[in-house]
């Protein structure tokens, strides 16, 4: 990771002759990037809501909105890797739940610290993820079916581990990790999530595994013919997805402070994670997208849904809101052959037969 800053520096250093056209082109190109779009739209939603209610823009609220979505963000980063291989992982909810529950019991009953339980959370996730990977890569089951199956199986495992018990009281270190922040603005878990997003962005961009993920997602047969071990790439992708869901479980536990037999599945966290992945610019057809977009999309979703509440819109509309945002994100993608928001609006506004 040490090489990243030097490259960033190079990219940032301005070219001496500044001409208006080049600047305009740069602005247009960066606005075409989903990451930039998300930052702009998030700030916009933030500004509008703040104008409506000045209480929205307190540092405490910002910090809370970020911390509140970090479990989803971390799960979405893993989901992104799987989606990039042209797969999907529906089973992340019970993986998160199982990790949260298992670590929660040990914390509650034996007082183990988050750092001591981190390896356990990761291992639970990795093992469950490996199950998905084997089903997809070696048994050749389509990802949506394989992980639909394990969604049920892992929910069962979570129920067995719960055995009718719940995690309700945790050592204070958990609450501190999940809810405290620096300068009452930058939540600890937000930084953890950002580090994970950047780390995996680097892995995807600059390692053999990352390259292979894009190759497999674009064209698995061509990847095989280029000497890439497609099965290995798939297994690793699902293991990573599971591992990050495990990490998400620990973050969830720290933030919420409780866990039970339906943690994760009860809030359909896998669907929110997939939504963040798609809104973040990755496509279900594979080979396109990245983790930073997913991270930003998770924060955007959190802000947008909080804004709904602030405008006193009944929370019953929340799922519909997420759905609409997914659809808008699809239409905002100008790089596919699909009609875009702009072309649809132009077509609607144009009178039929009005063009020569």
């Amino acid at each position: 990771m040490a090489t990243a800053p030097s490259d960033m520096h190079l990219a940032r250093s301005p070219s001496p002759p500044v001409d208006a056209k080049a600047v305009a082109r740069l602005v247009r190109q960066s606005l075409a990037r989903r990451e930039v779009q998300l930052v702009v739209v998030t700030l916009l939603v933030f500004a509008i809501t703040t104008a409506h209610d000045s209480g929205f823009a307190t540092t405490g609220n910002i910090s809370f909105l970020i911390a509140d979505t970090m479990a989803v963000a971390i799960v979405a980063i893993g989901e992104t890797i799987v989606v990039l291989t042209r797969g999907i992982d529906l089973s992340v909810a019970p993986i998160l739940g199982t990790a949260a529950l298992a670590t929660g019991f040990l914390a509650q009953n034996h007082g183990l610290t988050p750092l001591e339980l981190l390896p356990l959370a990761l291992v639970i996730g990795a093992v469950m993820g490996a199950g998905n990977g084997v089903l997809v890569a070696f048994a050749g089951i389509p990802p949506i079916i394989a992980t639909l199956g394990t969604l049920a199986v892992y929910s069962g495992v979570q129920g067995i581990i719960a055995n009718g018990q719940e995690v309700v009281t945790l050592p204070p270190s958990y609450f501190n990790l999940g809810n405290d922040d620096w300068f009452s603005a930058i939540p600890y878990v937000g930084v953890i999530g950002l580090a994970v997003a950047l780390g995996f962005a680097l892995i995807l961009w600059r390692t053999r595994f990352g390259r292979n993920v894009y190759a497999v997602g674009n064209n698995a047969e061509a990847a095989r013919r280029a000497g890439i071990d497609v099965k290995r790439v798939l297994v690793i992708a699902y293991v990573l997805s599971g591992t990050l869901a495990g990490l998400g479980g620990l973050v969830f536990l720290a933030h919420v402070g409780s866990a039970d037999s339906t943690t994760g599945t009860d809030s359909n966290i896998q669907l929110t994670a997939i939504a963040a992945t798609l809104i973040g610019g990755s496509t279900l057809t594979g080979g396109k997208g990245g983790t930073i977009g997913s991270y930003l999309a998770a924060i955007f979703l959190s802000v947008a849904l909080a804004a709904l509440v602030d405008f006193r819109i009944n929370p019953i509309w929340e799922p519909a809101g997420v759905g609409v945002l997914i659809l808008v994100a699809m239409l905002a993608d100008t790089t596919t052959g699909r009609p875009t928001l702009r072309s649809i609006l132009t077509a609607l506004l144009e009178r039929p037969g009005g063009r020569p």
Partner: protein
Amino acid sequence: MYEQHGAVVAPDEPVDELTELGPASGGNPDAVAEPVAYAAAGITKSFAGAVALRDVSVTFLPGEIHTLVGENGAGKSTLLRVMAGIHQADAGSLTLGGEPLTHLTPRAAQQRGIYLVPQEPTLMPHLSVVENLFVGILPKGRLPFSIDWRRMRETAGGYFAQLGLKLDPRQKAETLSIAQQQQLECARALVHNCNVIFFDEPTSPLTAHEAQLLFALMRRLRERQFTLGFISHRLDEVLELSDRITVLRDARVAARFDGAEATRDRLVNEMVGHEVKLQRRTARSGGEGGVALAVSGLTRAREFESISFAVAKGEVLGLAGLVGSGRTEIAETIFGLRRADHGTAELEGRKLLMPSPRSCIDRGLIYLSEDRGRNGIFAEVQLAENVTASIVPHLPRRRGLLRPASERALAQEAMDRTRVRTLNQAALIKSLSGGNQQKAMFARWLVTNPKVAIFDEPTRGVDVGAKADIYTLIGGLAESGVAVVVISSELEELTWICDRALAIYEGRVVGELAGEQITVARLGRLIVGER
């Protein structure tokens, strides 16, 4: 809609004669009846800033085969796609039989009798042959909501007899070869009662024999006053078939010829804008460099049997055969994509045991797949990373991370060798022309520094300029000591570049020719099983 086609598909009138199919076949007055001219005037079209067509005017007349030629990216396909309603022109007009067409969509075009047989067949893989044929116009059966399957099958059988096709109407489209899929597309145009038919490079996946069947059909359609548009990169067939030829270059019309006055040299010069000579490589006898690849007794049930041959360093060996003769399967088995039942391949005297693409690549054996769209490119990935995809494990890195700068330099070097013409390495490969994509695939394999290179249809769907580059490249590889195996349906190509050629027929090697013995006529006889 159904009635409109009733006249054509009447069950008690099996379609034996093409007269039943023609535009003048009568029936519903709404259906296309008269031969019509189809004109495009001043068409301009650009994609995301790249101009594909610049003020192009072309008229297609009934009773003529009008051919568009030009290099990849010259705008031929785009023009036909505009005329078939797939793309909307930025400027210019379309006139069908004197009537202007506006806001043309693919559906509207088909209803007006305009059909584009696309470059890559677009069949529905899980539907049967007959369903694909009648898609959109399924004939009604007696019961409400029912479909008259028998009538469809009988009619389809009639068309197939017409076209000389051996297709089972009940077969699933996914089980068809590329050639058969192409044939089915042609049949579909007739079934849909179209009288303006465009063929976008229909012959590139076809063998010579299959192409001749298609040409026979096109000539008969011409007699029936159909309006026919055709795109091909094979100039011999262009000269053989065309009444009129329009040459496109750099998105403009470069020249127009009458079929009779056109010659190969004149066409090529107009296409590339300068002189290009495709000529025979000076053949050399192999052997002095030692054997690089030796295949013995390679067998896979129902695909090929007892295949044995050897290629020397610096030699170019051709494998000639019809589509389905087993030539691609042989290459894929050597490269570890399929498992051999018997037999082995030896690379420089060492057996390839349980080969996989990775182990072959690492030991210096590479295989360029015949279908770059399906088995080659990573569409959404940058050009440079497409080139280095096969050597990612061996790329330079620092602290475990790849170094984009040195990777790009490596890719650039390979792309210079293969003459990929593009300014931007960061461009997604899908934005490149077919010829440049193919050269990028060559670059992907050249960066591995192969000792043995198997090229399957190296110039499929590639223009004359790129073809010449690829021949030069293959010659240069052999010169530098690489053993090259070329699989091709274009026999002429094999006569140009091979030192030696094997003919494959029904999974067996049926003949071997060397040097001056390699002629189109001799290869052509061998690959259909004649002596």
